[in-house]
């Protein structure tokens, strides 16, 4: 269990949130031109690294807004939280 700071509501327990997987995966501009392998790569393949990862989270039991989190998956330390559409902090 850990605390996540929702950019809209503030600090809340993790149980109020749902994880939405890896962030910043860009949808291909021309999906019809992709091979099956490239499309499968876009749909299913995720880095799933042990360490600092960029993730999407949803405050499902609060404001119901999506936002981005930079989280270390090895110890659940959250390095930054930022809104959708914003660029990740540089440090």
């Amino acid at each position: 269990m850990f605390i996540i700071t929702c950019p809209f509501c503030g600090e809340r327990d993790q149980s109020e949130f749902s994880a939405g997987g890896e962030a910043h995966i860009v949808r291909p501009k021309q999906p019809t031109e992709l091979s099956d392998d490239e499309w499968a790569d876009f749909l299913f393949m995720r880095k799933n690294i042990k360490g600092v990862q960029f993730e999407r989270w949803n405050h499902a039991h609060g404001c119901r807004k999506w936002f981005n989190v930079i989280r270390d998956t090895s110890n659940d330390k959250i390095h930054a939280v930022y809104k959708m559409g914003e660029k990740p902090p540089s440090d």
Partner: protein
Amino acid sequence: MLNINYPKIEKKDYPNLELNLVEPIHKLNLRGKSRDFFTKAGRILSIMLPPEPNTSATIKSISALWLSPDEWMVYGKDIEKNLMLSLDSEISKLNLGSVTDVSDQWVLINMRGKNVFEVLSKGSSFDFNQFKNNKNVVVQTLLNHVDVILHHNDINNVDLFVRKSFSEHLWLWINDSSSFL
């Protein structure tokens, strides 16, 4: 079909805690972002929708609760049909935002007394330490795994909104928890 007799909730008293069903009461869900939406909603309701997160505004018997950056709940006994029609014609029909009557979707339970936050803390991970010292604050959280909206409208006086289908279960849990006070 909607069962108007559900949930069966009767007033209960516990040490320093009073539980009461506050129904029927009108509840509206307002969603919008534009400046026109804010202006029209404010003019029709005679209340400014609070832009600050986790806050509320109350004028007379109508309260507006912040739910998200573009969503509010407005509730009160003085919400008349004319007011709802005005919101519908001046906001919904002009596509400035959405207005939904959620009176039958949410059940309002009023909790008052010194032990309100003792009971709420038993089933919620939310930190009530600051919340209980401030009036007109709102939080959407989980209480005994059930989604609730809590409006602290006066010190030790909380309006709790719960979805109708979960209301009886939560009511039984609140009573069970209160019996150990």
